[in-house]
């Protein structure tokens, strides 16, 4: 049976631990293993951190996180009303660059692409809608 849960959080960095707890509780119920859960937590954390740090959210604006189990896969959908931003278009960082040339940015989206099986971005009704899929 398909199941869906969701949480709404303030656009502040201290929401991250709340989100992590929400993910652990629900992904376990969906039957996700520890390693996949660790990777999914990182991907969600990076996506939400980007929204909080770069999305220019209005003061009271909330971020909505939905987790949905569909057969043998879990969909994670993150919605926000910050400025339109498609994370899938960012260039990958050069992870082989020597220390002097290593950049500090770009790793978050790299983790998302590395750890999730599919990612998709839409902008609809004034909302960024970022969907990530992880197969169980």
């Amino acid at each position, binding site marked *: 049976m398909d199941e869906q849960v969701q949480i709404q959080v303030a656009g502040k960095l201290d929401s991250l*631990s709340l989100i992590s707890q929400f993910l652990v509780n629900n992904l376990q119920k969906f039957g996700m293993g520890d390693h996949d859960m660790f990777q999914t937590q990182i991907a969600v954390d990076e996506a939400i*951190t980007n929204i909080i740090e770069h999305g220019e959210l209005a003061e009271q604006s909330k971020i909505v996180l939905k987790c949905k189990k569909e057969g043998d896969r879990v969909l994670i959908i993150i919605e926000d009303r910050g400025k339109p931003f498609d994370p899938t278009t960012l260039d990958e960082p050069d992870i082989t660059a020597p220390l*002097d040339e*290593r950049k500090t940015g770009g790793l978050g989206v790299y983790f998302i692409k590395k750890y999730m099986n599919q990612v998709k971005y839409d902008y609809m009704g004034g909302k960024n809608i970022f969907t990530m899929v992880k197969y169980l």
Partner: protein
Amino acid sequence: MDMEDTKAGKVCIIVLNGRLDAYSSNKLEEKVNSLIDNSCLEMVINFDGVDYISSSGLRVILSAVKQLRKNQGDVKLACLKPYVMEVFDISGFTQLFEIYPTEEEAVNSF
């Protein structure tokens, strides 16, 4: 995230406990910068209590190593758990840092 700092000779040791996400990474950054401002050149970060790290944590450690090596210092890492090690690995960070199985080995490597 709890963090404690101690010293072994000239080496500053930071022991971390908890999740290293963007929120707690800001606290770690403050701690690292205050040690560097107080002339710490040789630093060990003990990850034994860390079961989660995001790119924000990596960013703080990268910035620390750049600052310290510029002044002939270094930051060495100890006790990384398997999933955390995987994050270092896929980011190419295992090539940039000296990583030791124990805090003692990291301290003695200076």
